[in-house]
Structures are given as structure tokens and as C-alpha cells.
């Protein structure tokens, strides 16, 4: 009975090893894939911004600083984005700056009824909302998947095979700090003549 029992134990342990290892690898790939999804959405956003800026430029000559901020933030984000997954902290910071610049721009656009009257802006606004949401949801999926991956590789039985699967804790996408989350300041003295 002795050798047989040993054999059974070996088989069970071996099977568990395979399952745990494969589970970690699957999660690792899911995390990488989720990161790629954010990338896709960020690229979309970067492509959309020039259109938006062109559409509003003519009507808001005296809001130059807001537009400049958006363009600058966009260019910075495009530059940082080329660094790849290693620079996730920098990328998220650049993207958060871009998000808040865009938010300020949209608030300003709200104040120009003649801009909103043209259908073009309505569409662009919908596109922008959607793009922002897509970035946010892609980020959410990445953070959820990465958290799951991190938890799995640190929890007890699975942590034993973490080294074998070359599992490293994945960085989470940082949520912007409270200061940036606050409602953008609008300078009322710049109110347009209607």
C-alpha cells in the first residue's frame, strides 16, 4: 500500500502544480492584454483631440490658454506613451493631466452657446465623453485584472509556484489625486459676449 499511496500523493501534488501554474500564466496574459486595451483607447483619444481642438479653435480665440493646455498635455502623453508598459506610472500621470485639461476645455465649451448650436460640437462632445469612458473602463478592467493577478501570486498555496511562473506584482493604474478630481475652476471674467 505504501508505494501506491506515495504515487497518489505525487500525482495530486503534480496536478495541483500544473493547475496553479497555468492559472497564474493565464492571469498574467490577461493582465498584459488588459494593459494593451488601455493603450488602444489612449491612442484613440490622442487621435481625437486634434479634431476637437480644430472644431473649437475659431470660436474661442480668447480661451487660448485652455486650448494650449490640452494640446500640450496631449503631446506630452503621446511622447510618454511610447515608453511602453514599464513607464506605467509616468503614463498614468501624463494621461491624468490630459484628462483634467480636457475637462476644463469641455466646461469652457459649455459656455459658448453658438458652439453648442452647431451639430458638430454635439457629436464631438459625445465622442469625447465616450472616449473618456472607454479609457476609464479599460483602466478599470486592467486594475481589476492586475489586482486579481497580484492577489493570486501572493496568496499562500499559489505563492509557491509564483517564482516558477516568473510572476511579478503588476503596477496598478493610479487614480488621479483629489486635487485634480475637483471641479475645474472657471474664470468668469472671461465670459464670452453672446
Amino acid at each position, binding site marked *: 500500500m505504501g508505494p501506491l499511496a506515495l504515487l497518489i500523493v505525487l500525482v495530486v501534488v503534480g496536478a495541483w502544480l500544473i493547475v496553479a501554474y497555468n492559472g497564474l500564466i493565464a492571469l498574467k496574459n490577461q493582465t498584459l492584454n*488588459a494593459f494593451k*486595451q488601455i493603450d488602444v483607447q489612449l491612442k484613440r483619444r490622442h487621435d481625437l483631440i486634434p479634431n476637437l481642438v480644430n472644431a473649437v479653435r475659431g470660436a474661442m480665440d480668447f480661451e487660448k490658454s485652455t486650448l494650449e493646455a490640452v494640446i500640450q498635455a496631449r503631446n506630452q502623453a503621446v511622447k510618454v506613451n511610447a515608453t511602453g508598459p514599464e513607464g506605467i506610472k509616468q503614463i498614468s500621470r501624463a494621461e491624468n493631466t490630459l484628462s483634467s485639461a480636457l475637462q476644463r476645455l469641455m466646461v469652457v465649451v459649455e459656455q459658448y452657446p453658438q458652439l453648442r448650436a452647431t451639430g458638430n460640437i*454635439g*457629436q464631438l462632445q459625445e465622442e469625447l465623453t*465616450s472616449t473618456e469612458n472607454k479609457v476609464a*473602463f*479599460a483602466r478599470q478592467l486592467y486594475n481589476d485584472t492586475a489586482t*486579481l493577478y497580484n492577489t*493570486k501570486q501572493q*496568496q499562500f498555496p499559489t505563492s509557491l509556484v509564483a517564482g516558477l511562473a516568473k510572476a511579478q506584482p503588476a503596477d496598478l493604474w493610479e487614480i488621479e489625486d483629489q486635487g485634480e478630481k475637483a471641479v475645474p475652476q472657471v474664470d468668469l471674467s472671461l465670459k464670452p459676449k453672446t
Partner: protein
Amino acid sequence: MSDEASLNLFQQQEANRRRTVLLVVGFVAFFAWLGFGGDYIYYLFTRDAPRYAYHHTVPWFGIGLSLVAAAIAWYAYRTGPQKVLWSTGAREIVEPRTDQERQLVNVVEEMAIAAGVPRPRIWIVDDPDPNAFATGTDPLHSHIAVTQGVLDLCTRDELQGVAAHELGHVKNLDVRLMTMLAALVGAVALMHDGTSRVLRPGGGSSEERKPSPLVLILLVVWIVSWILAPIIAQLLALGVSRKREYLADAMSAQFTRNPLALASALQKIEGAEAPTTHIKRGAAHLCIADPLGRRLTSHEGLFADALATHPPMVKRIAILRGMGYAQLKQQGR
């Protein structure tokens, strides 16, 4: 998404795969019973016949019906989603033309990203009553349809909640089981309508032979099961969909992080009294809310449990509100 939630998702997908297989096996087995049962009865009838008369020894009915059932199941799996969409008269949005359509496409794209599944194909049902459903066989081949009423009544956030609910059904493979069921229920109903017309005047010409009581009992059971077939199929459809709605609601909350939006969307859907006329009985269990406008779903109880396709709306809204307030509390607002 906690560890537990993902485990549940995996188990849910497994359960749905298993149940779909069971459904198909049950479907074929039922037809086999009808066929071979008929063969046996016919065999008993002709056993005492004179030597020169026909003796039914090879179970042709059973073989034939089993093959037909397998073919139907295969056909249902291949074309089920198309059939469901066709029956509701939905039209696909290939290229969004109006602002409403563009918003719908955007919202579904957003939710597909949140759910981590490919974007399903998007359809609109021209019906003023708000309702929505999803169909398909797996996340790669899935469809989401909403009525015009949803587009007219719901805000962007509410639309998001509804789309996320449907994507929840897609992601945990509810759509496979429910579409299969819709297609098979439809097939049974269709064949039943067709054959009962043929069977009804069925004159038993062999009165002088006096069949034994055993044969009579068999015959009665056989006929009863044939008559009951559509009812059984309908009950299956009912039982399968109720629990799933709670789960899809929870998945919607997980994708949007905004359970209150879905709660208010459900309230609007519930508030619109009119039944969704474009969605027929066969596809009722696929919808986010009972399209037949049956008041059964307004309360829970033994009666409603047995006959309603959907859980009580009040309870669903209450659960979603609970999630929403818990979330607000956590954020310290």
C-alpha cells in the same frame, strides 16, 4: 472583481455549458421517447396481425425522430441568434446614422471594454416600450438588442447600465443556454402546431382487434407527453431565466460601478406599462424585463415563482439601490 467573483464567473460559464448540453440531450431524448414509444405501440398493435399483414419490427419512427431532433438542435445552435433577432424584427446598426444610434454604439463599446469581451453586434427593435435582450452562442458571436423605447427614455448612464446587464449575460454564457432554449421551444411549438392538426382526426381503424390495456395505457402516456411538450418547454424557459437576472444585474454594477443608474433604468422600464409587442412569447426569457407585461413579476411567491419568467422588479431595484448606497458610503459621500 474579487477572487471569488471571478471564480463564480468561471463556475457560471461551466454551468451554462453543461446545462446547454443537458438541454440538447434532453431534447433529443424526448424525441427519441416519442419515436421509439410510437414504434413500440405500433409493434404491439401489429403483433397479433395475420401472417400476411404488416408487422412493425424495425423502429423507424424512433430512428427518424431522433435524427430529426439532432438535426433541429444543430440547426438551432447555428441559426438560433438570427432566428431570435428575426422574430423581433430587429434591425442592425452597421453605421450609426442618428445621434441616438451613435450614443448606443458608443455605450455598448464602452461596456464591452469594461467587461473585457469583444464588441457584440448591435440591433434596435422598433418598439416604443423599453426593453432589451442579448443573444448569441459565445462572446465572439453575440448580439445586443434594445428597443427604441430604451433609447428614448433612458439617459446615457441608464443606457450604460442596461448594456452592461446584457453584456453580463454574454460574458457568463447565459446567452448560449437561453438562445438555445428559445430556438428549441420555438421548434417544439412549431412542430406541435403542425402535427396536432394532422393527428387530431386520426381515426383508429382497427377497432375490432381490441388492444390490450397495456397498449392503451402506453398510448395515453405517449399522447399526453406529446400534448405536454410545449408546456414542458415553456416551463423550462421560465425556470432557467429568473435567477440569472439578479446575477446579470450584479455584473452590470460591477462593470459600470454605478448600480443606481441601472436601478433607475429598471424603474423606467417597469413604469412603462405597455407590453413589448414586438417580442413574442418564445423570446420572453431573454429580455431584461418581462416583455409580456405580466403583473406576476410584481411580487414574489409560489405562484409567481412557478409562472413568471422574471424576478420581481421591486426586489431587483432594491438590491441595486443597496449596492449603490453601500458604494456611496464607502466613498464617504
